[in-house]
């Protein structure tokens, strides 16, 4: 008798299900089930993955969810058609929105309100001895669902299956609800039982040994062969027959979901495409003030035709609306990614790159063949993106808009932790194990046994074997849903009837249960509202320029191709400039020597893991220095590759090559690109490879060229950029470089006011600004505001005044108080004395101490020590007595306090602000360091290659790129310059603690130099610390000098660490 399993949980019932949806579907198909229902607990998060797998396996999939109302036994609800599916999604939304993240609160009344069309199967968890307890809720369910109600009979070879079945049959007769056979499936295969027990233990926060009474005695909760189930239900064959009936009755498939974008933006008299055309043409006239060329016009028509044909017009309108909103609010925004290929986006003001001028390929963005939604990503200022998000929630309502989810999966470390805890290991031992497993992605689980045995676990012991096997299984399991960085989904109808919406951990945000891949699978469009710190900085810089120079700059009217800007870029003086400020980019700039905008586009694209691994960088550099050497096999290829000197660098070029050289259609070319990008499945590329090589051979290219080209395409497409994206970013590179070159003070102030962002900490930004002869003034209660501001220096130029925000631990409110009391009505004068300051601001002891330590009273002629001595004597909270406001200055001075040395000043500056305008901490150790043969960093560049050297400095940042094979890059700084350290994996392991956490260090190693870029390959690390302090060569030579030195040294080693920027 055919059988369909109608009660089955995937691992999207977090910590309950122990199999992936795909595994369950594949197994059900293998066993010849006539259907499989995915019924996760209060969730539809796993259904899209199951849907995809079911389509491949040709299995009938039924969608549903297990709902546990607070006032009735749990029930499995199955969707019959599109409408009932919508009601199920709405029911879950309703329960989820009521509860905190991850929780759900549903009552019987809610189920009744959404019951129409749903099939219900009641799951009596425990059979009560007194039949009344069950019959009453059964009756209520029966009233709601009438003959769509069933009673689940789930037999698991327990103690008394026959008795249980007989009892259920009795209930069934008494309540007039037919029995339905099911398996309460938690995993696809009995071998997953152990993992299921681990998950249950984790769920209960205990070890497996402690929860035996909660665990079933056998592994029957898997998908069982149909024959076995038939044998189990030999007394009640109608229960099996009913599974088939229900499976047939529920005919809903996710393919039926018709997804539509909101249409309210279209004026009543117009059609969406008509309105989009109108907006586009209006925008085009603005974009091409000299008249729209015929070519551009053709292009616009082509795009609009395709957009109309695929029905994406309302999507474009929605994005246009967002951008319009942001512009009105003065929020800078710019489209990135492949959307810049579209002239329509350009005309609508979504992107800033003219695809016509750049010769970009629209098919990279939207193609007929690719049945996939286009992806428009828009960057907004990072501090103001929330305004845009809330605008969307307001405009469309919570029922119609939600953020895309991100499925947070078990990683190696979390998997080991949970499995170890479930196996009953001691917390201390678990910590020891997991400490050795640094953040590793689920894909890295292959090295797990090695890592664990390194951490001291005997992986051959029974416990060790279990731990490894279970942790490997658990890796990649979904753990909870989180929110995507910015993907927003909007619908014309209620979104909550498409997919359940739940509360996010962040207040004011709501999230749908599907992630990006799920949305792609169903062709649902999302708008990525990303945040970009540089946009914030640029906007702030524009504002400063307008205020102080009375010049109104926008992203669009920045003068193009300024030679001075490129001179600066070629010298790699790009600290703070968007994208090209990183270590790798800065080392490339002097070699690439960009001279025009397109060079920047290439610069952005070429310093990427893909091109670097594909060995495209050197050929490009060689050809750039000697242009004649480039040879093209044909005129068509020359056209495509000319702008990158024969090196295929962009995804668009790959597509064009396939089109002109191998006769691909645009859509096929896009499919080829995607197949190359799909690194997971190596097999999918083979048909394309054949097609590509055959096509090229037919057109007369040499076999060798075909092969080289194919390999090149393949290697870079892993991480390659679309050209449009590189161009969008290059625009911001140019703008920020322009601002840095022409308005260094304003640019630095804007960067500092937008922290945290970018690659460098404030100290390096200021250092770079001072190198550009910007005078920087310290934060001061009489001159500073919260933000950094500009002042006029003696020669009439701009000087940068640090804001009070640079003082660690000071809140904006305090700054506001200080500024308000300074500029308040009737008190136009600055603070005259500390006492005056206290009386006018009413700030308490703690805040005064902070300000004193940060040396913010310098303009009162009080140094930090005296100020602190006074601050300490203040009351913990001051009250302002307006009548006594004007008292004479009688600050309390203490002559016994030791005078402060320069080294202490610098150190205190670093501790309170992370930077010092007085000097560099390393300079105070120079004599001692030189005595040990340690070089200044600026001398490393002249050091002979391959010779050993020893350097010391403050750590600016650490990087461990995933593609670098375990290499750690550390950037250090001293008073003379910056140096890059390279640590191979074994060095990192040997000096793990120093490499990962020291704030200042001494490194010894071998000097390496390529194309004028110097690195130190480190083989020994040492903390720069207290032992040096005794040799402090500052101006303190009293008997306490050694103590001070030790303090300074120890602080250097310990306290400054919070300031370095560590990325992994």
């Amino acid at each position, binding site marked *: 008798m055919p059988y369909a399993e109608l009660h089955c949980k995937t691992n999207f019932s977090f910590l309950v299900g122990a199999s992936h949806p795909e595994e369950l579907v594949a197994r059900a198909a293998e066993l010849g089930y006539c259907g499989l229902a995915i019924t996760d607990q209060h969730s539809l998060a796993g259904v899209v993955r199951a849907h995809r797998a079911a389509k491949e396996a040709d299995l009938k999939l039924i969608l549903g969810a297990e709902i546990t109302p607070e006032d009735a036994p749990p029930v499995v609800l199955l969707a019959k058609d599109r409408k009932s599916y919508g009601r199920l999604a709405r029911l879950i939304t309703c329960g989820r929105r009521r509860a905190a993240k991850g929780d759900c609160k549903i009552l019987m009344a809610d189920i009744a309100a959404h019951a129409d069309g749903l099939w219900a199967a009641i799951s009596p968890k425990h059979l009560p001895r007194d039949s009344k307890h069950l019959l009453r809720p059964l009756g209520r369910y029966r009233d709601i669902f009438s003959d769509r109600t069933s009673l689940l009979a789930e037999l698991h070879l327990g103690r008394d299956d026959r008795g249980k079945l007989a009892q259920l049959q009795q209930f069934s007769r008494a309540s007039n609800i037919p029995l339905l056979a099911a398996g309460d499936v938690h995993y696809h295969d009995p071998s997953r039982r152990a993992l299921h027990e681990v998950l249950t233990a984790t769920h209960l926060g205990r070890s497996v*040994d402690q929860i035996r009474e909660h665990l079933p005695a*056998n592994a029957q909760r898997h998908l069982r062969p149909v024959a076995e189930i038939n044998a189990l239900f030999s007394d009640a064959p109608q229960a099996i027959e009913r599974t088939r009936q229900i499976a047939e009755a529920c005919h809903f498939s996710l393919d039926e979901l018709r997804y539509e974008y909101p249409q309210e933006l279209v004026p009543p008299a117009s059609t969406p495409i008509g309105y989009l055309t109108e907006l586009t043409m209006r925008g085009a006239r603005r974009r091409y003030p000299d008249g729209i060329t015929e070519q551009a016009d053709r292009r616009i028509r082509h795009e609009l035709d395709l957009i109309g044909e695929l029905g994406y017009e309302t999507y474009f309108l929605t994005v246009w609306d967002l951008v319009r909103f942001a512009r009105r609010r003065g929020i800078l925004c710019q489209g990135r990614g492949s959307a810049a290929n579209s002239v329509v986006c350009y005309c609508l003001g979504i992107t800033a790159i003219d695809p016509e001028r750049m010769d970009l390929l629209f098919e990279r963005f939207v193609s007929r063949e690719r049945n996939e939604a286009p992806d428009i990503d828009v960057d907004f200022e990072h501090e103001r993106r929330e305004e845009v998000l809330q605008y969307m929630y307001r405009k469309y309502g919570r029922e119609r808009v939600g953020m895309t989810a991100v499925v947070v999966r078990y990683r190696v470390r979390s998997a080991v932790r949970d499995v170890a805890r479930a196996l009953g290991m001691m917390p201390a031992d678990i910590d020891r194990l997991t400490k050795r497993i640094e953040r590793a992605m689920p894909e890295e689980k292959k090295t797990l046994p090695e890592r664990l045995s390194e951490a001291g676990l005997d992986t051959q012991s*029974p416990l060790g074997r279990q731990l490894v096997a279970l942790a490997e299984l658990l890796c990649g399991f979904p753990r909870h849903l989180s929110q995507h960085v910015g993907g927003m989904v909007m619908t014309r109808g209620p979104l909550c009837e498409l997919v359940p919406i739940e509360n996010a951990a962040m207040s004011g945000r709501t999230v749908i249960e599907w992630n990006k891949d799920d949305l792609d699978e169903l062709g649902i469009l999302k708008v990525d509202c990303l945040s970009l710190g540089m946009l914030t900085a640029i906007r702030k810089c524009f504002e400063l320029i307008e205020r102080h120079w009375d010049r109104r700059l926008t992203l669009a009217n920045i003068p193009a191709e300024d030679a001075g800007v490129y001179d600066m870029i070629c010298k790699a003086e790009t600290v703070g400039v968007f994208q090209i400020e990183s270590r790798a980019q800065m080392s490339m700039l002097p070699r690439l020597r960009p001279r025009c905008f397109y060079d920047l586009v290439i610069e952005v694209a070429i310093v990427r893991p893909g091109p670097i691994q594909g060995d495209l960088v050197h050929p490009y550099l060689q050809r750039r220095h000697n242009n004649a050497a480039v040879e093209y096999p044909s005129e068509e290829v020359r056209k495509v590759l000319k702008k990158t000197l024969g090196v295929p660098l962009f995804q668009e070029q790959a597509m064009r090559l396939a089109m002109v050289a191998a006769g691909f259609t645009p859509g096929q070319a896009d499919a080829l690109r995607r197949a190359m990008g799909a690194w997971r499945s190596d097999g999918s590329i083979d048909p394309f490879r054949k097609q590509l090589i055959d096509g090229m051979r037919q057109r007369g290219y040499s076999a060798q060229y075909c092969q080289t080209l194919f390999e090149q395409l393949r290697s870079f497409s892993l991480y390659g950029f679309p050209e449009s994206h590189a161009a969008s970013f290059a625009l911001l590179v140019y703008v920020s470089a322009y601002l840095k070159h022409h308005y260094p003070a304003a640019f630095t102030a804007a960067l500092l006011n937008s922290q945290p962002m970018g690659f460098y900490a404030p100290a390096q930004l200021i250092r770079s600004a001072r190198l550009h002869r910007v005078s920087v003034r310290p934060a001061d209660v009489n001159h500073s505001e919260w933000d950094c501001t500009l002042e006029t220096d003696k020669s009439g130029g701009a000087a940068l005044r640090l804001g009070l925000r640079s003082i660690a631990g000071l809140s904006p409110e305090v700054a506001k108080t200080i500024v308000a009391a300074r500029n308040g009505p009737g008190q136009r004068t600055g603070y005259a004395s500390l006492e005056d300051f206290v009386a006018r601001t009413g700030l308490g002891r703690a805040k005064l101490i902070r300000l004193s330590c940060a040396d913010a009273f310098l303009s009162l002629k009080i140094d930090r020590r005296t100020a602190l001595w006074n601050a300490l004597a203040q009351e913990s909270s001051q009250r302002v007595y307006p009548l006594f406001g004007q008292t004479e200055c009688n600050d309390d001075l203490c002559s016994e306090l030791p005078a402060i040395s320069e080294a202490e000043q610098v150190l205190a500056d670093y501790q309170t602000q992370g930077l010092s305008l007085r000097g560099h901490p390393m300079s105070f150790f120079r004599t001692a360091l030189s005595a040990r043969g340690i070089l200044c960093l600026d001398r490393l560049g002249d050091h002979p290659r391959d010779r050993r050297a020893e350097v010391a400095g403050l750590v600016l940042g650490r990087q461990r790129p995933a593609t670098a094979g375990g290499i750690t890059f550390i950037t250090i700084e001293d008073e003379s310059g910056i140096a890059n350290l390279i640590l191979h994996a074994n060095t990192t392991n040997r000096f793990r603690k120093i490499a990962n956490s020291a704030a200042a260090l001494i490194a010894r190693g071998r000097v390496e130099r390529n194309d004028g870029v110097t690195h130190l390959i480190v083989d020994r690390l040492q903390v720069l610390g207290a032992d040096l302090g005794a040799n402090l060569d500052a101006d303190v030579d009293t008997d306490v000098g050694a103590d001070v030195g030790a303090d300074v040294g120890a602080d250097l080693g310990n306290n400054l660490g919070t300031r370095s920027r560590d990325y992994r």
Partner: protein
Amino acid sequence: MKPEHSPKRYLCLWFPEGPQGQRRGNKSGGTRTSTVSDGEAIGKLARWCQQFSPYVAIEPTGCKERGERQNDQAAHDALLLEIAGAAHLFGGEDALAQQLARRLSKRSLAVGIAIADTIGAAWALARQEAKAPRIDRAEVGEGHPTNIQILAPGKPLLAALGPLPLAALRLAAPTTASLASLGIHNIAQLSALPRDQLTARFGTSLLRQLDQATGHCKEVLELIHHPVPASATWMLEFPTDRIDLLQEIFRRLAVQITDTLSARGQVPLGLTCQLGLQALSPINIPVHLYRACPDPKHLASLIGLHLERRTIREPVCSVRLVVTDTAHREAHQKQWFAPHQDVAGQRRNNPSPHALSRWIERLSSRLGCTAVARPELRCDPIPERASRLRPLTRCKRVGKSGKTIDPATFRFRPLWLESAPLPLRKIVLDRLGRPLRFEYHGDTQEVSLAAGPERIESTWRGRSGIRQILRDYYRVQTSAQRRFWLFRRHGDGAWFLHGEFD
């Protein structure tokens, strides 16, 4: 004001790596995991130190200022001994310090030792990393650096303490940080500042700490005290091998300890009897009670019953009883009327509620603990492990475990279980795989009713490793009206008989 000569001398022990020494990881990464907390370990050390001075204190916190507690690690790393009258017993202060250093070094403990006139000064000096040898400094043992500093009595303390960093004053971290920001790094600098201004800024505790260290202000040592376990000893003038004599000694000692305990409001729940022999090592007899009992006669008789099981190869020369476990009196006394009268069940028609427990204790003593046990149900689906025997006298009788087992469970489990499943041969099955006929003890059993299968499966459990159990159980009734519990083992399909119902 000149500090008058202090008659007191303090010795401070500071354990820089904690009272348990440093836990060093071995090469394979496995680290020694300790079972006791630092707090317990320092308590143990403190009691150990009482052999040098009766006045031992655990320095309660790392910092005393404003009663702030730092983290727990700082809380348990220093001991203070008052040694004014005790040092000469060990050959003077120097010799005492050396001896302490040597013996602590043997325990693999790194330690700093200082002797001074005030608690504060001793504490500060003990923590001082020896930059330059001040008075005396010794390296004792290998790998466990020991730093000894002795400040002669009556010396001006401020001069000695002056160069020490401020942390030596037991100050809170924010205070030292603030002072460091002011450029004040050591005690000499601090004492040079105007006192009234300091108080206005840091409160009175800063100066109090300073004054206590320099001896301008008194400080009280908070001594440790700990209860001595109740015990009683009897030394025999002439060793004896007479049971009746020993029995009498047991009784008298039992009276002694029950009296001691009853003064504390306690009743013995377990004790150890130690018999000292002449040449051989002493014999320990542990006695566990089922119910706390204050009756010395009963206790004595229990020890006597133990002796009946043992051979003692030498005459006994001393007897010592030590109470190992006690209960509060309330837990024991449940009756208003004197329960002592009908001990040993003399009046049979009205047996005391204690009669049963007395009987259990006597049996356990005579036959050995493990021989008197009761079955205990456990939540394990594997029948062999579903119950186990527990010695009755070892059962913890307070706080019953809250686990209740569904009574329905027992309906499907036989009362009688083979200790190991019995393999069945000559078994005949029906087409559904249920048994029809099998041979048991030579008789052929015809199955008339069979219910099942019930699958019981164990793939892995805990640390013991993987043991595969996969069985299908059947309840069968034979034509002779006997009900058996059979199972088929998966894998080889062998059949076993595991138990019989009724």
